[in-house]
């Protein structure tokens, strides 16, 4: 069973050509906050855990990279899939990631990245309320 299945949350991203799955994951704890996949072919918890491991490894490495800056995204190109991982930051310290997996033959990487960047920018915006 997918954790916190959330078709509304991922609306725009589900339209991306070649869409397989999407999820938002807390990189600190590895918990999936929301997810969507059209079919259950790929076990989402495993994809989410893999993305969190990759991002945490990349973040650990930034100490070696001097003034290179913070990790913004990771793009993993496999023979038949893209795993597009975008870091979502809300305030200091709290890092979520957005993972979108696409089937390669169908996907247009440049367009997909633009969609994902727009989606990421808007994900925390426009919903503020006083705590």
């Amino acid at each position, binding site marked *: *069973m997918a*954790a*916190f299945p959330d078709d509304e949350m991922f609306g725009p991203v589900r339209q991306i050509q070649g869409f*397989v799955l999407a999820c938002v994951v*807390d990189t*600190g*704890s*590895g*918990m999936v*906050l929301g997810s969507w996949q059209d*079919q259950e*072919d*790929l*076990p989402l*918890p*495993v994809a*989410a*855990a*893999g993305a*969190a*491991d990759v991002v*945490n*490894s990349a*973040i*650990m*490495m*930034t*100490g*070696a990279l*001097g003034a290179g800056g913070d990790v913004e995204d990771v793009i993993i190109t496999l023979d*038949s899939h893209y795993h597009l991982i975008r870091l979502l930051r*809300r*305030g*200091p*310290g*709290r*890092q*979520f990631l957005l993972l979108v997996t696409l*089937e390669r033959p169908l996907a247009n990487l440049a367009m997909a990245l633009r969609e994902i960047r727009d989606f990421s920018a808007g*994900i*925390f*915006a426009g*919903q*503020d*309320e*006083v*705590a």
Partner: protein
Amino acid sequence: MSRYRARGAVLPAAKGPVLSRLGKAAASGRTGMLHVPGGAIYLSEGMVAYAESRRTPDLAVRLEKAAAVAHTGTVSLLERRWLAREATVDAATELLAGRPRQARFRACAELDVSVAATMPLAVLISEVSRRHEISRQMSAILTADTVIAQRPRLPGHVVRVSDFQWAIVMLARHPVTPRHLALELGQSVFGTTIESFRMVSMGLLAVPGAPAGPAAMAGAPGQARAAISFIRALGG
């Protein structure tokens, strides 16, 4: 797309008197609270609405701390939802860790909860099991109740840490446990324990009195064999 065959992604099924009572209440769509030693788990029409534990921060303090550190002083709906779920999962992880044997379910007519924060029981149990497995993997080095302290000598290479990690390192000027830090910072006990573990592997914190572990624990990023792997926690 049958080229994918997953293995190792199945987590242990819920067992024990508490979980079975919870399972029955959820399956019959009950609304009410299940008292367990140390706290309670709330159901609303069979879904898990909230959980609280004496040993984890409650939602109110988490919201307060989150708003305090946010640049705008407010918390977005998405983050609020995450905080509510995190409060629930953190508490449930604590309550179910000791395999409690007693539970009393008290039904009530309705529960005033935010629907967005509810989750199916199976999802909660799955996440709790995942966290228990990660805690088990960390337990060789530390648990939520292990005393930690700043290392007298900082590592020789550059490290970058998040604000949360920095807060942990700073507060560990005096020996303290991850649980104590979590309650003070309004952060999850589980999350604080993981970050403490990461700080130990990065050489910023130590467990006083522990034998001077393998070189990896105080080593450079590339040697972080003791690092947490979420894939490993799923049995992969």
